[in-house]
């Protein structure tokens, strides 16, 4: 655990506030017309996913969490927990899905991911910016429906619903933006 001046906090910094671990989602500097410099932070609680908005004076000392980056294999999900294995120690452990909802759409069994861990707690699952996924369910395009830009919804192998161009078929692979969940392109292997 180290101390960090609030003015040095960046997006992505891990902080301990009121004994709860948070990641900084947004940081904004506020210099009131005639006052000290302040930093307004939007924090995401890494246990409850709740959002906390707080304001610190730039000179305030905050508690920064020293986290570990661990490479882990995703074994499976049981609906409530993700099961992972540390690829260096072969230790197995669980992560509650509700704290990392989005991850379930982008992890395939057997793949490895970098996890941010602190005191046996997983604070973050590092997902790639883009992920290639197989289309598990797709409606057939209706004949004659050739309007440029026409779209439909498909379901991927990870159960993610994605809006795609009309030409995408079941069994094809598509590239999805992990942050927005949006279709980017068709992948021809």
């Amino acid at each position, binding site marked *: 655990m180290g101390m960090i001046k609030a*003015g040095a906090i960046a997006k992505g910094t891990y902080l301990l506030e009121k004994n709860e671990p948070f990641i900084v989602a947004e940081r*904004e*500097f506020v210099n*009131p017309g*005639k006052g000290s*410099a*302040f930093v307004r932070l939007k924090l995401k609680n890494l246990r409850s996913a709740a959002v906390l908005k*707080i304001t610190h004076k730039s000179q305030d*000392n905050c508690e920064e969490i020293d986290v570990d980056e661990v490479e882990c294999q995703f074994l499976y999900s049981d609906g409530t927990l993700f099961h992972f294995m540390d690829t260096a120690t072969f230790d197995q452990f669980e992560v509650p899905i509700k704290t990392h909802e989005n991850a379930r759409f982008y992890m395939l069994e057997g793949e490895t991911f970098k996890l941010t861990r602190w005191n046996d707690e997983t604070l973050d699952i590092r997902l790639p910016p883009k992920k290639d996924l197989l289309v598990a369910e797709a409606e057939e395009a209706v004949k004659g429906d050739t309007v440029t830009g026409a779209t439909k919804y498909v379901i991927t192998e990870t159960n993610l619903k994605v809006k795609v161009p009309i030409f995408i078929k079941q069994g094809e692979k598509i590239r999805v933006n992990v942050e927005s969940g949006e279709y980017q392109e068709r992948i021809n292997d």
Partner: protein
Amino acid sequence: MYRGIRDYFDNCGYLEVDTPLLTDSPIPESHIELFQTRKVRPDGTSYPLYLVPSPEIWLKMALASGSSSLFQIGRCFRNGEQMDKWHRNEFTMLEWYGVDKTSGDNLLVMQEIIKVTLHAVNSEAGEEVSGNIREISMDEAFREFAGFSLESALEESGLSGINRTSPGYPASLADITEFFRSRLKEKNLPSGDIDRESADDLFHRLFLTLVEDALPADRPLALTHWPAFIPTLARGIPDTPWADRWELYIRGVEVANCYGEETGEELLKNYWENESPEKPDPDFRWPQLIGRGMPSCSGTAVGLDRLLALVRGDDSLKGLDLFPIHDNMPR
């Protein structure tokens, strides 16, 4: 935009001035970091000069020397600011002073400046930028968003109708400091080293956490009647705990501030003394010169880069950076 603003002030009979960017005695503002350079004499000896954080001191000197209403569009420099969405170390400021005008008059002028800017860039910005400026007092804002009356608190501390040179002032200030401290504790807000913090830092903690972010942004907003204990060059409103001051927010971004100007020599001197300790070379001739000659007036400073970006519908100053510099330079 600049041409539109110049035409507007020209038609209103304001004098345009162009004042120096380098000074050996900057205005003391304890919260502003300055850019310092050195003037080198031919013999190789040197002395410090500073880039102005605003043209305020020059414009006030001009007024004290008998100038009529005046304005300037010029570059200003503030060190220590983080380069983020709405902050730059170098920026363009419009500052104007209307002789015999009030802060209320200047709010009307501000509305016109927004109109001029909208027109100059053919903006189709909505009500949140082009709408009529809504006025909310600091007390109304605190009652609405912080759940208590700031006016009652200030009055109970005895801060009504007194100023920084009054004998009872230190005790009243200690009282309000304690009040803010207990509010912060009660609301369990981050507090840093609050047991040693000044009343205005504690006030800003409450204001920035509970109030500023919650202010309505559907129209431009002028937050009026700021606590007089915050050290500024705004005059106190007689028999109240308030300073004659407003800050303008557009889409939640602070764009301008305005004072009914303090002209009393004693209070100006007090400000210089209190704001100076950490500042280089305060020049105590200024309060005397300004205090003895400055007419009743109101001055407004507008961050033109911010105004332009907001009128354009931008979410940061980035679109105006022709030659950007970053905090991580030099490489």
